[in-house]
C-alpha cells in the first residue's frame, strides 16, 4: 500500500500541483481583469501561448538562457497587455457585453492565426533547462518539475505579497471589489485597469514559459488553456483572487489524481459535469460575490 502511494499517488499529486499552479497563474489574471473591468478576456489563454512563443524566439535568438527569457517574455507580454486594454477593451467599457465578447474572441482567433503564420502550425517540443530525474527510492521525478514547484511557490508568494502587503496591491484588490467607489476616492481607475491587464498578461507569459518544456507548444495551446481558466474561475468565483488560486490547485489535483483511477478523457467529462453542477447550484462559485438573481 505504501509503495503504491509513493510510486503512483505521490508523483500524480506533484503533477497536480504543477498543473494547478500553471493554469492558476493564467486564471488569476483573468479573474482580476474581470473583477476590475467586468471584461471576460477570451484571448487570455492565447496570451499564455503567445508568451511561450515570444520567450522561445528570444531564447533561440538573443537571450543566453531559459530563465532570463521567462522574465523578458513577461515584460513583453505586459506591454502587449497594456495595448490590448487601451486599444480593444477601453473603448468598449460600459457597452453591451456581447461587443467585448466578440472583440476579445476575435483577438483570440487573430493571435492563433498570427502564431501559425509566424511560427508555423507545427507543434514544437523544447528541452527542459534541467534534464534528468531524481530518484526517491520507489519512484523517479523529473528534476525540472521539482524546480518549477519551487519557482511557482516563489511566483505565488510574490503575487500574494503584492496583493496583501503593498499599497498598489491593496488598490487593485479594492478595484476588484468596487471600482466605482475607488474612483470616487480619487484613484485613477483607468491606470489601475491598464496595470491589471499588464500584470495579468505577464503572469500568463510566466505560466506559459514555465510549462513550455513540459508539453509541446502549438498555436492551438491557448484554446485549451482558456477552457481550464473558465473552469477555475467559475469554481473559485469570478473576481475572487483567493478563490481562483484555491480552485486551481483543487482542480489540478482532481484531474491528475482522478487519472489514477479513471481514463484522462473520462476525467475531462467528469470535470465538465462538476462545472455544470456548480453553475446550477452555486453560480457565483465558492468564493465569488452573490449574483443578481441568487
Amino acid at each position, binding site marked *: 500500500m505504501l509503495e503504491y502511494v509513493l510510486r503512483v499517488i505521490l508523483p500524480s499529486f506533484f503533477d497536480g500541483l504543477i498543473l494547478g499552479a500553471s493554469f492558476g497563474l493564467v486564471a488569476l489574471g483573468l479573474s482580476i481583469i474581470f473583477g476590475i473591468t467586468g471584461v471576460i478576456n477570451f484571448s487570455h489563454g492565447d496570451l499564455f501561448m503567445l508568451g511561450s512563443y515570444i520567450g522561445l524566439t528570444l531564447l533561440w535568438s538573443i537571450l543566453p538562457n531559459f530563465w532570463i527569457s521567462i522574465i523578458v517574455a513577461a515584460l513583453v507580454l505586459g506591454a502587449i497587455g497594456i495595448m490590448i486594454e487601451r486599444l480593444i477593451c477601453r473603448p468598449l467599457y460600459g457597452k453591451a457585453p456581447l461587443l467585448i465578447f466578440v472583440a476579445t474572441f476575435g483577438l483570440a482567433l487573430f493571435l492563433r492565426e498570427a502564431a501559425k503564420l509566424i511560427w508555423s502550425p507545427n507543434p514544437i517540443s523544447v528541452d*527542459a533547462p534541467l534534464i534528468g530525474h531524481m530518484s526517491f527510492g520507489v519512484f*523517479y521525478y523529473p528534476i525540472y518539475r521539482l524546480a518549477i514547484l519551487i519557482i511557482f511557490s516563489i511566483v505565488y508568494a510574490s503575487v500574494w505579497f503584492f496583493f496583501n502587503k503593498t499599497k498598489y496591491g491593496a488598490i487593485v484588490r479594492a478595484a476588484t471589489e468596487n471600482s466605482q467607489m475607488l474612483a470616487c476616492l480619487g484613484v485613477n481607475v483607468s491606470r489601475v485597469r491598464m496595470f491589471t491587464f499588464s500584470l495579468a498578461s505577464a503572469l500568463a507569459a510566466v505560466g506559459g514559459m514555465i510549462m513550455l518544456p513540459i508539453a509541446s507548444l502549438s498555436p492551438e495551446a491557448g484554446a485549451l488553456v482558456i477552457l481550464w481558466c473558465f473552469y477555475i474561475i467559475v469554481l473559485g468565483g469570478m473576481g475572487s483572487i483567493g478563490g481562483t488560486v484555491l480552485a486551481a490547485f483543487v482542480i489540478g489535483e482532481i484531474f491528475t489524481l482522478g487519472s489514477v483511477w479513471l481514463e*484522462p478523457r473520462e476525467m475531462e467529462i467528469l470535470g465538465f459535469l462538476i462545472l455544470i453542477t456548480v453553475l446550477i447550484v452555486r453560480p457565483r462559485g465558492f468564493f465569488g460575490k452573490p449574483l443578481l438573481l441568487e
Partner: protein
Amino acid sequence: MSTKPVSRREFLKYGALAAGAAIVAGGAVYYATRPAPPPAPKAAIKIGDLSGKTGVGANWGLHMTLGTKLAVDELNAAGGVLGRPVEIVTEDTALRADVAIKKAEKLILEDKVAAIFGVLSSGVQRAVIKVTEKYKTLHFLCVACADYFRTVDFHKYFFTVHQDGRMSHRALVTWLEKEYNPDPTKLLITYQDYAMGWAHERAVRKIFEHAFGKKGTNKVAWPLGARDFTPWFPKIKEIAPEYYHSSTWGMDSITQIRQMGDYGLLKGLKSFTGSCCIYLTSDLTFYGPTADGTAFPKYWAYPSPNKESIDFRDKFFATFGQTPNQASAAHYEGVKLWAKAVEKAGTTDPDAVVEKLEGMEYTGPLGPGGTKVMRKEDHAAIFDNQITLIDKGKEVVVATVDGKVCAGKPMPKFPIPEGKTVEDAMEAVYDQDSYKPMPDIKKVRYEA
C-alpha cells in the same frame, strides 16, 4: 529621252512600292531560310503528393515530398517518363480526413494526376483510398501503415510500397519472441487512439496469440496529438510492465518518449520495442539517450547494406542537406516503381499500369537489398524486414526477417460481415491468417 523632273507625288508612290516589294522579298527570304522552330514541349505527366505537411506529422510530410521530388528530378534528368516530364502537385491534408478527400478529388479531377503518392495518417488514408477507388486512380501507399489497406479497404488500383503494420509486426513479434520469450501479461502496448494505433495493438496482440499461443497483453491508449502524456503514467505504473511496445509517431513520439524517460518509466525494462514509425531516422537527435535500446521493424534502415539504399541516402543528403528517413525513401521508391511500370505499359492508363505492376520484380532502397516483388493478389511489396536497434543514438540493424512469410495470407477485399464493424473484420483477418511456417530470422549487424 524626257528630262521632265519627278514630282513629289510620283516619288512617294514609286518609293512606297519599292519599299513594300523589298519588305515582301526580305520576308520571303527569311521565311525560307529560318531555322526550324523547336518542337512544342510534350505535356507533363502530373503526379499527386498528398500528405500532412502541418501538425504533429509535419516532419513526415516534408520528407515524403522530398523523396518524391528527388525521384522526379532524376526521372526528368533522364528524359522523363514516356518522353514526358513529370510534374508534382503537392497538397496538404492537415491530417484531416475531410480536407484530404477534397484535396484528393482536386488532384484527380482538376489536376488530372496519373497517380497519387500518400497519404500520412492511417485515419486519413482510409478516407482517401475510397476516393481513389471511386475514380479508379493509381494510389501508392508509402507511409501510413495500418492493416486495413491490403484487406478490407483494398482496391485494384492501390499498391503498398512499404510494409504495413501486419507485416512489420509479424517480423517484430517473431524476433521479440525469439530474443526475449516475453510473458504477455507483463507486456504493455501504448498507442495513439485512432486507426493506426488500433491496428498496431491488434497486430501485436493477435500475432502473439496465434503464432505463439500467448494471451493477456496490456494496453493504454492516448489521443493523437496529446501534448502531455503524464495523465496516463499512473496507469502505466500500475501495470508495471517488463516489456514495453510503443506505437506512437511524429511529435507525439518525441514528447512521449522524453516524458517517459523523465519519469523513469523506461528504466528496468527487459525489452523496449516500437512500431515502424516510432522514430524517424532524421529525428533521432531529439530523443537523446532515452531512445537507446529500442528495437523496431524498419522497411528502410539508414545502415542498410543495400547498394540502392546507400546511393539514395547519399544523393538525398547531397541534394537537400538533410538526413533521409523511411518516409523519403519509401516515396522515392514508390515514384520509381510507378515510372518503371508506366514505361513498361507504354501508357499512363491505370488498367495497363496495374497489369504491369502485378507480379513485377524490381529493386530499390527499401529493405536489405535484392529483388522485390509486387504481389499480385493484394499488391503488397514483398521484401525482408530489418529489425533495427537504437544504439547510442544511431540505428543498427540486428536482424533481417523473411518478408514473404511476414506478408501473411493475401486477403484483398476482406468482407465486413453484416452487423459487424470494420474492427471486428480486422480481428477476423488475423484469426484467418496463416502462422506457419515461422519467418526466418537472420542475425546481422549493419552499422553506418
